[in-house]
């Protein structure tokens, strides 16, 4: 290997309290590159369908790829596990953690088993230690970070930890990396179940590059394509400077907000990006080697009730999410972000669960008696934050909500399911579905429950940015037309495949703007120059296809079927009254009919795995059912 990959997997067995180093098979890297791809492969091979997510057999995988540690990676890490709902629990995060892991000499960390007492893992180059974490348990993520920094005394150490939400097994808890880089919906819950409080990493090695001149040339070309002065992508300057300022307005004006639990599409006087810029942003703070000057920002609330809150943010997803509770003030949004980050709770899960509870309260399905006296009306910010705190500490009604809205609806009964906004048992996120058909289809078929980072961006590329010699499977104008089911299947298939391979390099999906989002050749050049692999464009996109197929095979094995690839009932049946947007209705089925035939037959994919079995070098620490033969139901599935 030598170039790009370090060729090492670190397996940490928490039951036995030991760590083993293992070689990364070259076959895997050729077929799945790294990051999300190899994570999915490890998960597929080692966590079988019989494994309970909350058991010793479940594994938590932190994966980097060949380009990690070079400036192309932007510090992305893919965290993957078997989600408590049975689907893939996967999320990417930025920051500097993954780069440090690579510099320490590891491509992957696989956490296995389960500890009896809280522990944390310290990786300082080749020194790996499982330490006692009793004193960290119960602390929030920032406190954990600072305590670990102090007691290890290592400069530049990066910490991935969980907050109280993960410790108390709140559904969809996330992993929080140093400086509020967050990712991995559901992975924090599994990390909490394994009693692993944190993973602290520092490395002093490097990443070798095969062809430095080619790499530098390709990198300069990439940076030129991201140059803001010539930006042809409408959202690039916004993301680079103005914190998605326009995004808030676009969502509100088009009626794309899930306001009042998606009953409406807009809120009067919704959050303004200008106010955010002028009042709350203090300075930029980005991920490792991010080429955009201010993609990440630090905010601070200086006056008012919530004065003193500060933190980092990268996307305004949290601000769009509070629309579900009918809220429209920045201090509440920032307080919400702060609470979620400290507790390690996923913002979308928290907001959408509370939004659902609010509608149930207004419709009289639950009353003040159920909610312990909290007045859960839309727009009540006090109640919103109060119930959020109860969710984190799992007291009273908060305990019901902490299991996720689908479970909560089952507990509450009385037809509360009608107001659910869930796909595959997981809460929706802010991407509009009735307004954008590509988002509706992409979220419906997502293997890890709704996740916009797997097919980003949703808006069409400027025709000027599409190179003339680029072969495309879909018509970019027709495919991105927001309210037509035409050509969506091939578009979503292409988006999924291309993002899967790019996340395996890894690189950040938020820089896929303009030409970089539609043309994979700049990324392929960087991959080839760094690793010395001679990969063709055709093979490159096939790797992405293989990854998506593998993930799909995984959830099919878990029992998910076409009926699970759907959108919430409200999106299918109810219009957005304030913007006159009709429901999706029959169009979803026709888009799905369009989508499935683009996938290759499952049988072919299983053949791929047979080759890999022979090259699987390690004996798993915990016996597991092993790769299963495709069940008859899986092969007959219409894919």
């Amino acid at each position, binding site marked *: 290997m030598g170039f790009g990959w370090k060729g090492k997997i670190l397996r940490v067995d928490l039951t036995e309290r030991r760590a083993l180093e293992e070689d990364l098979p070259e076959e895997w890297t050729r077929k799945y590159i790294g990051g999300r791809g190899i994570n999915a492969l490890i998960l597929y091979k080692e966590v079988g369908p019989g494994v309970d997510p909350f058991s010793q057999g479940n594994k938590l995988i932190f994966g980097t790829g060949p380009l990690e540690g070079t400036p192309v990676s932007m510090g992305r890490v893919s965290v993957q596990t078997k989600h408590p709902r049975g689907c893939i629990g996967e999320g990417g995060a930025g920051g500097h953690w993954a780069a440090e892991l690579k510099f320490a000499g590891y491509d992957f960390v696989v956490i296995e088993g389960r500890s009896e007492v809280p522990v944390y893992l310290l990786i300082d180059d080749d020194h790996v230690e499982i330490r006692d974490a009793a004193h960290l348990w119960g602390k929030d993520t920032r406190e954990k970070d600072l305590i670990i920094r102090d007691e290890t005394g290592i400069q530049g150490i990066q910490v991935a930890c969980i907050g109280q939400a993960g410790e108390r097994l709140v559904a969809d808890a996330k992993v929080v990396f140093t400086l509020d880089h967050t990712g991995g919906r559901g992975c924090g819950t599994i990390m909490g179940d394994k009693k692993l409080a944190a993973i602290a990493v520092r490395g002093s090695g490097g990443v070798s590059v095969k062809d430095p001149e080619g790499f530098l040339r390709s990198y300069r070309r990439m*940076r030129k394509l991201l140059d803001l002065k010539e930006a042809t992508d409408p959202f690039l300057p916004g993301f680079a400077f103005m914190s998605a300022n326009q995004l808030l307005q676009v969502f509100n004006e088009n009626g794309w907000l899930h306001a009042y639990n998606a009953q409406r599409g807009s809120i009067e006087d919704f959050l303004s990006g200008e106010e955010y*810029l002028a009042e709350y942003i203090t300075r930029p703070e980005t991920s490792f080697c991010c080429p955009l000057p201010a993609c990440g920002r630090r905010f601070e609330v200086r006056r008012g009730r919530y004065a003193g809150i500060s933190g980092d943010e990268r996307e305004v997803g949290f601000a769009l999410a509070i629309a579900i509770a009918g809220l429209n003030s920045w201090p509440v949004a920032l307080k919400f972000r702060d609470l979620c980050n400290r507790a390690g709770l996923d913002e979308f899960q928290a907001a959408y669960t509370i939004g659902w509870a609010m509608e149930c309260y207004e419709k009289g399905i639950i009353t003040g008696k159920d909610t312990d006296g909290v007045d859960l009306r839309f727009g009540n910010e006090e109640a919103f934050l109060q119930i959020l705190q109860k969710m984190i500490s799992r007291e009273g009604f908060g305990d019901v909500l902490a299991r996720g809205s689908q479970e909560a609806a089952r507990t509450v009964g009385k037809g509360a399911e009608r107001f659910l906004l869930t796909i595959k048992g997981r809460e929706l996120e802010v991407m509009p579905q009735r307004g954008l058909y590509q988002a509706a289809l992409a979220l419906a078929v997502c293997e890890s429950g709704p996740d916009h980072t797997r097919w980003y961006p949703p808006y069409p590329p400027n025709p000027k940015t599409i190179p003339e010699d680029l072969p495309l499977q879909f018509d970019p104008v027709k495919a991105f037309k927001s309210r037509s089911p035409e050509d969506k299947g091939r578009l979503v298939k292409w988006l999924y495949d291309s993002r899967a391979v790019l996340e395996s390099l890894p690189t950040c999906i938020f820089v896929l703007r303009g030409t970089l989002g539609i043309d994979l050749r700049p990324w392929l050049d960087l991959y080839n120059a760094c690793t010395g692999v001679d990969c063709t464009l055709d093979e490159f996109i096939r790797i992405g296809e293989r990854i998506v197929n593998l993930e799909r095979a995984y959830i099919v094995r878990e029992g998910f079927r076409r009926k699970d690839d759907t959108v919430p009932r409200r999106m299918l049946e109810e219009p957005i009254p304030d913007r006159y947007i009709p429901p999706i209705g029959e169009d979803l089925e026709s888009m799905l009919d369009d989508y499935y035939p683009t996938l290759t037959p499952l049988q072919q994919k299983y053949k791929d795995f047979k080759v890999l079995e022979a090259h699987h070098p390690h004996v798993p620490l915990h016996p597991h059912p092993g790769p299963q033969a495709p069940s008859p139901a899986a092969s007959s599935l219409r894919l």
Partner: protein
Amino acid sequence: MQKKIFIVANELCNGCRNCEMWCSFSLSQGAEFNPSLSKIKIVKDPEGKVNIPTVDCSAKGCLQEGREPICVEMCPTGALIYTDIVDLYKKRLELQQKRGKQPLFRLIAPWKYPYPWREWSEEGA
């Protein structure tokens, strides 16, 4: 002509470490990205309040000798500047005047736009 020096505008620094990584790339003749080889180090505050780039280098032996140093070229915000004092003040004044005409810039904090005298090209700055 005055001597060129490194100037660090730490209020512009976003802590991305592009300079560190490209410095090590340049010093190892393109063999590897390794922050421990770098002559630049960004000191990051653990609470995220400030980033301070420290430069211990005279731009000799750089891959880009005779041209703009690679760390300056790769810095996305313009926090690293390699110039002489007279030129620095002249350009800063130009920038301020340019900003004055555009209402958008009055709203945006100074770091929101990089020092605009760098152009991207495939051959480097």
